[in-house]
Structures are given as structure tokens and as C-alpha cells.
């Protein structure tokens, strides 16, 4: 290959980049789809295989009706060196309460759980030290939270479908026995959720069957093994050496394990015998032990009560004592104190008498006192009289004295004056000196005081004569005065003598009075003394009384206090006794309750032991391989279905993309015709000419494939598994490059492109250069069939004739376009149809006028008949229009015609004639309505299909106690969710030889509910449920609408897968339409330019092309619809999941949507094409071809 040639290849890629890209895209889409869908099932299998290996799923499971022991483990272990490990497992089935609320299963019944014990030391070795021991099988895979490390902690199941929403970390799970004492089996019945896990044992939402509740295990929980009381294992797990090397679900695996299953089976008989022997020995002893424990418990309880009673008796004794003391105290208070009071009263009266006496004395004293006062007055009078007389006397006496004194002074004055006078007279004529005068005056002064002044005034220095003159009169005066005074004195002296006499008289009377007074006084003093003495006596008596009184009060108070204290004591003791009595009652209750519990537990143990003892004769071992693990096979069959789908679906994509490739390459080679001719003329060999196109197409398809594989291997497995992950709880998907299908995909698309390139090239390479270099002779026009029908053809408009002829001109493109469009609309239709089918599950089962017409379902604790109280409450509820009792039990159903074994509900209506009011029992195809009767059972459609059963066939059911019954099928009825076998009570009795027991009721609410809007309805239902749940014996109330709601989760996820398909189809449709139309335009460029030259306006040119496209699209859509129906049928057949039946039909509007969408795409493509048409260059297009 020359350099120039290589460059020309690169240039042609560059020049026609959009064409190159369109091939790349088409191939990418096709291979992405092919590889993606192909990879899904292997990815799922791969993931689950790793899961089984990493989490050590057991290979063989041994179950015994009478328990398994370590001896059994050793026996199995030692059978063959290829038995890698054997481990015992304990489990117990129980009903579940979460946070003390009843939890419902998806079908509305109360959920039951299988409680597994986990060996905590194995777990701890595994999680803490990474010890990967083969003996640690079915390991839990922690999703959230942590592993338990206490006996009251548990792990719960992570399944989206089977796990109730309330299974959250931190919530409490309470286990309740179904008519049995769970305490007999478990030490602990309340657990806190600490972790959420997956288990390789439960890959799907199926949990198997149980003997309790609705018969279906709803969920599982894992608790420490030490919680279990039993000393034996419920089942054993066996791991076969080398089994991990084989893929689960492969024949190699089965072949590898099968011999060991057979080997273990041979051990069943001897080991059972050993166990029977052992139990025959030990069970009676166990029973005896339990009974001994029971009586022990009884006596312990008895002695405890006795003890309490004794203490009460003691209390009573001391109460009596206290009461006696109180009585005595009260007596003391009442009698002794009364005496004391009496004597006190006596003393008081005496005292009062003394007071009277005293008062008498007082009166006497007062009389004496008065008398004394009188005497005293008399005396006082006498005294005052005396005093008056005395005064008179004294005055008279002093008068006398003063007069005598006056007389004397007058005499002395006279004497002195006479002396002076004598002096003077002696010295008469002498003048007196001052000193003389002064001395004379001084003499006179005493006798005559006034003299001085007189002299002073009259004579300063007088003469003695003058003085004598002057003194002489004075002397004479004095002498006269003296005489008078002498006379007065005499008179006064007489008076004084009289007074003296009087005074003496008075003195005598005074003395007499004084005497009298003294006598009176003496008398008074005596009386007073007497009075004082008595008073003292009286006071002391009063004091004594007061004292006594006080003492008495004190004594009273003391006694009172004593009484109070005693009363308090009595009261305390009485209440103490009451408390003791209450304590006794409580204790009695408690003891009785404990005793009751113990009794029940022991009784349960005894019953269990007895039951086991009874069953020893029919004891059996069940040996299972993995196929009997719930959901194990359904995972396998789901991947099988997916593989089948992967073989159907992508073929469409491949066909379509191959066709598009072919057309594109053909067009390219046509365009390059002259170049090819030139190259040939230049001497290039055919091979190297072809190489260009082969390289071109191969590189496009290799790029496309790589892109497709790279994207497809993630996108499709991711989306599809996302939907399946509702049903399957396994770890994150591993994405592996599906080498096989990638090679097939790449090889196929390479082959397609290569083949189409070669086909297109073949003719050109055969031609001679000269032919090639001339313009290609246009394809000759041909008459079409329609022209033969003259009356149509002649009536057709010219432009339609053109269109008609154009359509059939290029048959290759005609068919390709139709196939392309048909393929795309088929994919769209199938996707939409799938959506219809998935929605139909809900709408046909629960929608308006659907199959399940009943509004609610009630679970009773005990079996009911029409007159049972609980049932009557439901019947009489004003919310309820009508109800019916039913029996429902989960069993396993199978036929000999297929391998399928299905969990199916055995449904027995108490009044089969009325069942059609609650559940529509129609055959979907014939429309015939059935009523359960003695003729046989009615089974649901999906179950019938899975087991290949028709009316008139027989079926088998296996009940949870491993008994198998044969059932005759009278009819197949339409049903979309779960499997049911409807039996009339008669037929049930015929098959099981016992009467059905009814513990469910289904019913229809009254019209108020049916006309209510959503919000009202939900509150009305809430009220009704609350009311009914308060009734003892009603376990659960569930509403059909709620079941419908939870189903929507499944259908939504499936819808997501459908959406993936749908959008892939959408993209493909667009690419295909665009590509084909584009090529169509390119090929007819010249013709269209001619039209433009002829004067066709743009819209007329568009129309010329559009009409063809519309017709092609219409034909394609029509074929696509047919194809879509087939594809849809294949899809619903292979993609159907267990326990639900997809709707069988595609709704009319899906056809409409698919067709409209196809046309919308055609229209979009046309819009793009119109732009191209507008830009067709007339000059260039019409140039002669160089």
C-alpha cells in the first residue's frame, strides 16, 4: 500500500466523518447491548459464586426431626476424607414484634422469623483475626452496624422485600411463640438490633416454610448461640472438599457434591437409631427432671409465701401488744387523773372556806382599825386643843417675857439716860467734844437707838446742856412708858397664869386620850398580826393547790403524749401490716406467675420431650443439597432466563446495525465508483482497492465495538441487576469483561461490516475501469405491481405515482429501512408492553374491578367459627360490609411434569359459594368463572404454568411437616401475585382427612370507604385497624391497598429495567432513521437538484421525499408492532420473576406511543433532512460527473 493510498483512506475518514461516526455509533449500540445483556447473567453468577465461596455456603444440609448431636457431626466427618467440615446449627421459628408492634409480611400476615444461633467464637475468630475456618459456614455479611457481642443483641436480614421497614439498628425485636412458650427454647426473647446482614444462605427474598404463623418464614435473625437452651442441633451443614472450585449451579458442582449427599444418606438410619436410643433413655429422665424442677419450683414458691405469711403474723402479734399498752395508757389517763382531780377539787373548797374565815378576820381587823382611827381622831383633837392652849400659854409667856424685856430695856435706858444726864449735869456748861458726844451717844445708843440720829441731826457739837435738855424729855417719856409697861406686864402676868391653868387641864385630857389610843392601837396590832398570820397560811394553801393543779396538767399531757405515741405506733404497725399484706399478695402473685412461667416452660419442655418421644418411631433425616435452600434455584433460573433474553434481544440490535452498516458502506462505495475505476486504471489490484474500504469499515467497527463493550459491560448489568436486587440480596455486582461474548460481538460486527463491504465492493471490483469511470447508469425505472391495477393507478395523483415507484425502486434500501424502523419500534413496543405487563400485576390484581376484591384481611390468634367472639366483633364493626372466614397456609407445590417447586398458599374459604365476591376466580382465556368445590382445586395461572398443569391434571403439595398430598386440579384461574390453591372445605377434608381451621378473615369495607378520597380513606383505615387491634385475639389487620403499595416497589424496579431497554431502542431508532434517510437523500442528490431546476419550491421537494419516508415509517411501524408483540411475549415468558405473573397483553396506548414515537423520530429526522435538501447545490449536482 502506498503512502498516498494510506493518506487517501485517512482523508476519506475525515471527509465523511459523520458517516464514520454513524457506523461507529451503530456498532457501539449493537455491541453494547449485546455484550451488556450477555454479561449480566455471568456477572451475577460470578458475583454470587464469589459470595458463596467467600461466605462459605454449605454444600449439604442435614435436618433431623429429633435433633442432631456432636456424635452425628463426628460420624459424618469421619465418613470420608473429602468431607471438609461439618457444623451444627440451632434455630427456632418465632413470631416477631418490633418495638412491641406487630410486624406484617409482604402478604399482610404477621411476620415470622427463623432465629439462628451463631457460634460467637467462630465469628470472633473470623472477624477479629480473619481466621477462615471451613467449619464456619453460611457466614453473615455485615451491611450496616456491627456484630453482636451480647446475648440480647441480634443481626437482621437486609432483604428489601422480606425485611420489614422497622428492622432498623437500635430497635427491639421481641420473639413470641405461636401457641407455645418460646422461653422453653430461648433464654432471651428480647433483642436489640445491632447489625443488618446478608447471608449466602438466603440470596433471594424467599425464606422457606415453617410450622408457625402463616406457614411462611418471613425473615431471619441471628443471635448468639448461647441463647438457645437446647443441647442438640436443629440441622447440620456439611462442606465438601473442592466444591468451591466449581461454579454454583453448574453440573460439575452437582456431580461433585452428589456422591456425598448419597453417602450422608446412608448414615441416616444408624445415626437415627442411636439418637432414638439415647432419647429413649434420656427423655423420660428429662421429663422427670422437668417435673422435679416443676415441683421444686412449686415448693420454693410455697416456702416463700409461707415466709411472708409468718412475718405478717409476727406483725399482728406486736400490734396486739401495742394495743394493750394503749388501752392501759388510756385507763391511766381516765381513772387516776380523775381521782387526782377530785381531791384537788376538795382542797380547793377547803381553801375557799379558809378564805371566808380570813375575810371575817379581815372585817374584824377593819373594825378595830376604824375604832383606832376614832380614838386617834379624839386624841388628835385633844392634842390640837392642848397645842392651842400651849400656844396661847406660850404666846402669853413670850408676851410676858417681851414685856419684861421691854421693861428691862426701858429701865436700862432710863438708867443710862440718867447716868448721862448725871454726867451732863455735872459738866453742864462744858462744851462737849466730839469724842464725848460720841461716847455718850454710844451709851445712849443701846437704850435709845433713835438718839443718835437726833443728836446727829440736832447737835453736831452741842453743848451738854443742850443735850441734857434734849435727853431729859426723852427720859421722862421713858419713865412714863415704864409705868405703862409695868401695868401691861402685870396684866399679862395674870393672863399667863390663867393660860397655865387651862394648859394643865388640856394636858390631862390629852393624856387620857393618849391612853385610849394606845389601847385601840394594841387591839389593832393584835388583829393585824392575826390577819397576817392567817393570810400566810392561806397563801401557802393556795400555792399548794396551784402546784397540785400544775402537776396534774403535766401528768395529763404526759399521758396524752403516751397515748398519741401508742396510737402512732399502732397506726404504723397497722399500715405496716397492710403493706406486708400487699407485699404478700404481690409476692403471691409473683411467685404464682414465676411458678406459672416456670410451669409453662417446664410443661413445654415436658410436652416437647413427650412429643419427641412420641415421634421417635417416625423420626427421619432430611438430607438436602443447595437446591433446597430457599431462593437458591430461583437465582439460578433467573440468570438462565436472563441468558435466554440475552440471546433474543440483542439480535435485533445486531441485525439493525448490520443493515445500517451495509447501506452506509454500499453508499460510500457507490460514491467512490469513479475513484475505484481510476485506481484500477492506474493498476492497483483489487485487494489493495478493497483494503481501503475494509480498513475504513473495520476501524469503524473496532472502535464502535470497543466503545460498546466498554460501556455496555457496565451499564446493562448495572441497570438490570439494580432491578433484580429487590429480590436478590447479594453483594455488589462484579463487572467482568465477558471475553466470550465480547469476542462474539466484535467478530459478529466485524463480520457484518466486512461482509457488507465485500458485498458492496464485489460488483465494482468486477467491472472494468472504463465502466467505472463513466457515471453509473441510473437504476432503470420499473413498472410496479400497482400499475397493473389500472383503476387504482389511473386515479392516483402524479406525485403519489412517483412516490410509489420510488419506494420500490431500491428494494435493498426499502427493506432495510423497513426492517430498521420495524426493529426500533418493536423494541419500543416491547419495552412499553413490558411496562404494561409489570403495571398489570398491580392493576389487574388490586386495581378497580380487579381480582382481589377484598379490602382487608384479619389474622386471628385462635381458630374461629361463625360465632367466635373475635370474629363477631369484625362482623359487627360498622366499617365492614361483609366478611368471610378463610384458612390460609403456605405449602410447597410441585408436579411431576416440571422441576419447579413453588411456595404456594393453600386457601380454604369457609363459604366457597361466596368466594367470588372477594376474589374473582376467572380463567383468563375462556372467561369461565369457577367456584371451589368437591370436584377439585383451583390453582392460579402462574403456578399452573410453572408446573405445567391444566384442568384435569394432578398436583402434589408438601406441607411443612414434610407430608405430601395429591390434589386434583379442577380449574386454572387468573392471578398475578403469589401462588394459590383454592380448596373447598369438603375437598380439603377429603384430602387431609380433617376439617379446615379458620384463623383468617377477608372482608369488604362499606361504601363510605369506597367513595372516600385517598387521605380520608387512609385515616378511616387507620381508625378501623386501631379499633380492631384492641380486640384480644386479633393479631393483625392488613389492607389490600397496603399490599398493593408494597408491590409497587417491585414493579417500579422492573420498570427501571424496561426504561433501559426503551431508551436504548429510542437511540437506535433515531440513529437508524437518520442514517437511512440521509443515505437516501445523498443517493438521489441529482434527481432532487433536477427537481429544483425544474422550479420545484423547497416544500415541494421536501414533500417528494417526505411521502416516501412516511410510508416507509408506517410500514416499518406496522411490522414493528407485530415484531414487538412477539418480542414482548418472549420477554414476559423469560423475564418473569417468581411469585408474580406479568400481564399478558400490551395496552392499546402502548402501540400508540410506540408508533407515535417512531413517527416523531421520523419527523425530527425529516426536519434535519429538510435543511439538507434546502442546501442542495443545483450547479454542483448537475455538473457532469467527472
Amino acid at each position: 500500500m502506498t503512502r498516498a493510498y494510506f493518506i487517501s483512506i485517512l482523508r476519506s475518514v475525515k471527509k465523511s466523518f459523520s458517516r464514520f461516526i454513524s457506523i461507529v455509533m451503530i456498532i457501539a449500540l449493537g455491541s453494547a447491548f449485546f455484550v451488556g445483556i450477555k454479561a449480566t447473567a455471568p456477572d451475577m453468577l460470578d458475583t454470587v459464586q464469589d459470595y458463596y465461596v467467600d461466605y462459605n455456603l454449605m454444600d449439604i444440609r442435614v435436618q433431623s426431626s429429633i435433633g442432631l448431636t456432636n456424635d452425628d457431626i463426628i460420624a459424618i466427618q469421619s465418613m470420608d476424607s473429602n468431607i471438609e467440615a461439618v457444623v451444627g446449627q440451632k434455630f427456632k421459628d418465632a413470631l416477631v414484634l418490633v418495638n412491641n408492634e406487630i410486624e406484617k409480611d409482604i402478604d399482610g400476615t404477621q411476620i415470622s422469623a427463623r432465629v439462628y444461633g451463631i457460634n460467637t467464637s467462630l465469628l470472633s475468630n473470623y472477624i477479629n483475626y480473619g481466621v477462615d475456618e471451613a467449619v464456619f459456614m453460611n457466614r453473615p455479611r455485615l451491611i450496616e452496624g456491627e456484630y453482636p457481642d451480647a446475648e440480647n443483641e441480634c443481626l437482621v436480614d437486609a432483604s428489601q422485600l422480606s425485611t420489614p421497614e422497622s428492622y432498623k439498628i437500635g430497635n427491639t425485636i421481641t420473639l413470641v411463640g405461636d401457641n407455645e412458650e418460646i422461653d422453653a427454647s430461648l433464654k432471651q426473647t428480647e433483642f436489640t438490633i445491632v447489625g443488618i446482614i446478608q447471608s449466602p444462605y438466603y440470596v433471594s427474598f424467599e425464606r422457606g416454610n415453617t410450622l408457625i404463623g402463616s406457614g411462611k418464614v418471613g425473615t431471619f435473625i441471628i443471635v448468639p448461640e448461647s441463647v438457645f437452651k437446647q443441647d442438640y442441633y436443629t440441622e447440620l451443614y456439611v462442606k465438601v472438599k473442592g466444591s468451591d472450585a466449581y461454579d454454583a449451579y453448574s453440573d460439575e458442582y452437582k456431580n461433585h457434591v452428589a456422591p456425598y449427599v448419597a453417602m450422608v444418606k446412608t448414615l441416616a438410619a444408624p445415626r437415627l437409631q442411636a439418637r432414638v436410643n439415647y432419647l429413649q433413655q434420656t427423655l423420660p429422665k428429662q421429663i422427670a427432671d422437668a417435673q422435679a424442677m416443676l415441683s421444686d419450683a412449686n415448693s420454693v414458691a410455697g416456702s416463700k409465701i409461707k415466709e411472708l405469711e409468718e412475718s405478717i403474723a409476727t406483725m399482728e402479734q406486736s400490734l396486739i401488744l401495742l394495743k394493750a399498752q394503749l388501752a392501759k395508757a388510756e385507763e391511766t389517763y381516765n381513772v387516776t387523773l380523775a381521782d387526782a382531780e377530785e381531791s384537788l377539787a376538795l382542797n380547793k373548797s377547803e381553801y375557799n372556806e379558809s378564805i371566808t374565815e380570813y375575810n371575817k378576820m379581815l372585817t374584824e381587823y377593819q373594825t378595830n382599825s376604824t375604832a383606832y382611827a376614832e380614838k386617834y381622831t379624839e386624841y388628835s383633837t385633844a392634842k390640837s386643843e392642848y397645842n392651842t392652849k400651849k400656844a396661847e400659854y406660850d404666846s402669853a409667856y413670850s408676851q410676858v417675857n417681851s414685856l419684861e424685856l421691854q421693861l428691862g430695856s426701858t429701865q436700862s435706858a432710863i438708867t443710862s439716860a440718867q447716868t448721862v444726864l448725871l454726867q451732863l449735869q455735872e459738866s453742864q456748861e462744858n462744851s462737849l467734844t466730839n469724842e464725848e458726844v460720841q461716847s455718850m451717844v454710844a451709851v445712849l445708843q443701846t437704850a435709845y437707838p433713835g438718839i443718835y440720829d437726833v443728836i446727829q441731826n440736832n447737835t453736831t457739837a452741842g453743848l451738854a446742856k443742850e443735850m441734857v435738855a434734849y435727853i431729859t424729855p426723852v427720859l421722862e417719856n421713858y419713865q412714863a412708858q415704864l409705868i405703862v409697861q409695868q401695868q401691861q406686864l402685870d396684866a399679862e402676868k395674870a393672863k399667863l397664869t390663867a393660860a397655865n391653868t387651862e394648859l394643865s387641864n388640856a394636858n390631862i385630857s390629852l393624856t387620857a386620850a393618849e391612853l385610849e389610843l394606845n389601847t385601840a392601837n394594841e387591839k389593832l396590832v393584835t388583829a393585824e398580826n392575826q390577819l397576817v398570820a392567817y393570810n400566810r397560811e392561806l397563801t401557802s394553801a393556795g400555792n399548794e393547790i396551784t402546784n397540785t393543779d400544775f402537776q396534774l396538767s403535766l401528768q395529763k399531757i404526759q399521758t396524752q403524749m403516751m397515748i398519741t405515741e401508742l396510737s402512732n405506733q399502732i397506726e404504723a404497725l397497722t399500715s405496716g401490716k397492710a403493706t406486708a399484706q400487699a407485699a404478700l399478695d404481690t409476692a403471691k402473685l409473683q411467685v404464682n406467675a414465676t411458678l406459672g412461667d416456670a410451669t409453662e416452660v417446664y410443661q413445654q419442655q415436658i410436652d416437647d420431650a413427650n412429643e419427641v418421644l412420641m415421634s421417635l418411631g417416625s423420626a427421619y433425616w432430611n438430607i438436602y443439597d443447595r437446591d433446597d435452600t430457599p431462593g437458591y434455584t430461583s437465582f439460578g433460573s433467573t440468570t438462565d432466563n436472563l441468558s435466554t433474553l440475552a440471546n433474543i434481544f440483542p439480535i435485533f440490535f445486531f441485525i439493525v446495525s448490520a443493515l445500517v452498516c451495509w447501506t452506509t458502506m454500499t453508499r460510500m462505495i457507490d460514491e467512490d465508483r469513479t475513484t475505484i475505476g481510476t485506481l484500477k486504471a492506474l493498476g492497483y489490484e483489487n485487494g489493495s482497492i478493497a483494503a481501503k474500504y475494509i480498513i475504513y469499515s473495520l476501524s469503524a467497527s473496532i472502535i464502535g465495538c470497543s466503545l460498546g463493550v466498554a460501556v455496555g459491560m457496565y451499564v446493562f448489568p448495572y441497570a438490570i441487576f439494580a432491578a433484580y436486587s429487590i429480590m436478590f440480596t447479594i453483594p455488589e455486582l462484579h463487572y467482568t469483561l465477558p471475553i466470550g461474548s465480547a469476542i462474539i460481538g466484535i467478530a459478529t460486527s466485524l463480520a457484518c461490516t466486512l461482509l457488507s463491504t465485500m458485498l458492496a465492493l464485489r460488483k465494482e471490483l468486477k467491472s472494468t475501469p472504463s465502466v467505472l469511470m463513466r457515471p453509473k447508469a441510473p437504476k432503470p425505472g420499473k413498472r410496479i405491481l400497482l400499475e397493473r391495477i389500472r383503476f387504482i393507478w389511473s386515479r392516483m395523483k402524479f406525485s403519489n405515482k412517483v412516490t410509489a415507484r420510488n419506494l420500490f425502486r431500491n428494494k435493498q434500501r426499502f427493506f432495510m429501512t423497513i426492517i430498521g424502523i420495524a426493529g426500533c419500534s418493536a423494541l419500543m413496543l416491547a419495552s412499553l408492553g413490558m411496562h404494561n405487563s409489570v403495571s398489570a400485576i398491580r392493576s389487574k390484581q388490586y386495581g378497580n374491578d380487579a381480582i382481589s376484591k377484598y379490602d382487608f384481611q384479619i389474622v386471628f390468634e385462635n381458630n374461629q367459627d361463625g360465632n367466635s367472639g373475635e370474629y363477631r366483633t369484625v362482623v359487627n364493626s360498622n366499617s365492614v360490609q361483609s366478611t368471610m372466614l378463610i384458612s390460609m397456609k403456605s405449602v410447597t407445590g410441585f408436579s411431576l411434569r416440571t422441576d419447579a417447586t413453588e411456595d404456594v398458599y393453600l386457601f380454604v374459604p369457609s363459604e366457597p359459594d361466596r368466594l367470588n365476591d372477594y376474589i374473582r376466580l376467572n380463567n383468563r382465556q375462556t372467561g369461565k368463572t369457577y367456584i371451589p368445590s368437591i370436584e377439585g382445586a383451583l390453582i392460579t395461572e402462574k403456578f399452573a404454568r410453572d408446573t405445567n398443569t391444566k384442568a384435569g391434571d394432578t398436583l402434589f403439595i408438601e406441607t411443612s411437616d414434610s407430608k405430601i398430598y395429591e390434589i386434583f386440579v379442577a380449574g386454572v384461574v387468573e392471578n398475578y401475585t403469589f401462588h394459590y390453591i383454592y380448596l373447598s372445605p369438603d375437598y380439603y377434608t377429603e384430602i387431609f382427612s380433617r376439617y379446615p381451621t379458620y384463623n383468617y378473615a377477608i372482608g369488604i369495607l362499606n361504601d363510605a370507604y369506597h367513595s372516600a378520597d385517598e387521605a380520608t380513606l387512609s385515616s378511616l383505615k387507620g381508625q378501623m385497624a386501631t379499633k380492631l387491634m384492641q380486640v384480644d385475639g386479633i393479631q393483625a389487620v392488613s389492607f389490600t391497598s397496603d399490599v398493593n403499595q408494597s408491590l409497587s416497589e417491585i414493579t417500579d424496579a422492573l420498570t427501571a429495567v424496561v426504561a433501559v431497554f426503551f431508551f436504548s431502542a429510542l437511540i437506535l431508532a433515531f440513529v437508524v432513521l437518520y442514517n437511512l434517510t440521509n443515505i437516501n437523500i445523498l443517493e438521489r442528490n441529482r434527481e432532487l437538484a433536477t427537481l429544483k431546476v425544474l422550479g420545484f419550491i423547497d416544500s415541494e421537494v421536501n414533500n417528494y421525499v417526505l411521502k416516501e419516508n412516511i410510508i416507509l415509517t408506517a410500514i416499518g411501524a406496522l411490522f414493528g408492532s407485530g415484531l414487538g408483540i412477539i418480542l414482548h411475549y418472549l420477554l414476559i415468558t423469560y423475564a418473569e420473576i417468581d411469585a408474580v405473573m406479568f400481564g399478558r397483553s400490551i395496552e392499546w396506548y402502548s402501540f400508540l406511543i410506540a408508533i407515535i414515537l417512531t413517527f416523531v423520530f421520523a419527523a425530527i429526522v425529516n426536519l434535519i433532512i429538510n435543511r439538507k435538501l434546502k442546501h442542495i447545490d443545483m450547479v454542483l449536482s448537475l455538473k457532469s460527473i467527472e
Partner: protein
Amino acid sequence: MSFIELNSVYKKYQTGEVVITALDGVSFSVEQGELCVVVGPSGAGKTTVLNILGGIDDCDDGKVRVGGELINSYNDKKLAMYRRYDVGFVFQFYNLVPNLTALENVELASQISNKALNPSRVLERVGLGERLNNFPAQLSGGEQQRVSIARALAKNPKILLCDEPTGALDYQTGKQILSLLQETSRETGMTVIIITHNQALTPMANRVISMRNGRVQRITVNDNPLPVDQIEW
């Protein structure tokens, strides 16, 4: 004023960095009813002139008048109408729609025209009365070119534009086609413009426009054109 007038028409093509001047100031006029031959060697700009006149290409500068209308100012829609009613095109390679019979190819044109002639009668006139229902592939080159002419004539256009109508035909057939065109012009008074590189054909025309390198070299008016039969080349 002449029926067709070109006044200083310029046209350049740009391919990548190369600019080709196709028309370099072309001016000429053609009277109504004339048969005009535009002659010149390859690359002289003959076809460009014809394309511009036919309304399938536009000019960069200058004025193109047909019947007094300035057609180079028309928008796409008006141009399409102009092509539809006023212009008939005959191509060197006929450009028949292969999927339509001779009659239908003519109908394709006549159906959109408002003054169309009867298609079968036009075909009879061009001598194809017997081949009405044949597909192009069933006709010889001359016959296909007759269909092509019939398709152009059936619209009853004002101008018939023929781009090397004999280019792909042998001598005899070519002569017949040229006669047909001359007759048409003479009988219907239609203005016919024929492009050819064959100088020998010029005597048949009323007016000869010689072009070279995108310019008009010479315009010759021939008052007595020779019938085609008398021309030899």
C-alpha cells in the same frame, strides 16, 4: 430594451485558497425570439452565464435582466418561480428522473407550470410519440435528450437554456437535436440560448456570443441563420 440583458456581470468561485474568476464583466443582450449561441473553449464561463440566466446560480456583481425584471435581485422563492414559469433547461446529461417514464418526466415539469402544453403532444412533436411509456433507461441518448427538451418545452417557458445539448450525442443525433431547437425557436418564437464549444454551429444562430476567459470577446448578429441541415462539421 432587449429581452435579455447582462450588464457587467462578475462571478468568482472560491475553492479553498484558490479564487477562480468565472465571469469577468460580461455584458450582452439577446432579443426576444432569437436563437443565440454562446461559444467558447472550456472554462470560458459559458455554463456560468447559463446558470445565472437560468436562476440556478447567482452573480457577484452586475445586472441580469430578463423581460425587464432584474432576476439577480430575486430571493430563493422568486427564483424558484422564475425557473418554474419562465425557464426551460436542457442538460448535457439529460438529467431525467430514471424512475419515471418519458411521459412522466415531461409531466413532472408540466404539472407545476400554469401555462403548460400537453405533455404527450410535446413528446409527439419531438418525435417520441411511440415511446411515451418508456423509462429513460430504455431510450437512446438522443431520445433521452428529446425527452429532456420536451420536458423543458412542455412548461412553455419564455427562455430555453441548453447546456451542450449535443455533447453526449453522436453527430447525426446531435444534428437532429439542434434542428429541433432551431425549429422550436422559429415556430414558437421562444428565445433559445445554446451553449457549445463547437465554433461550427454558429451559423445556425441569430446571434453568436464568443467568450474566452470569462469575457465576451465578440458578439455577432447573423441576420440569415443557416438551417442546421446545411451546416457540416
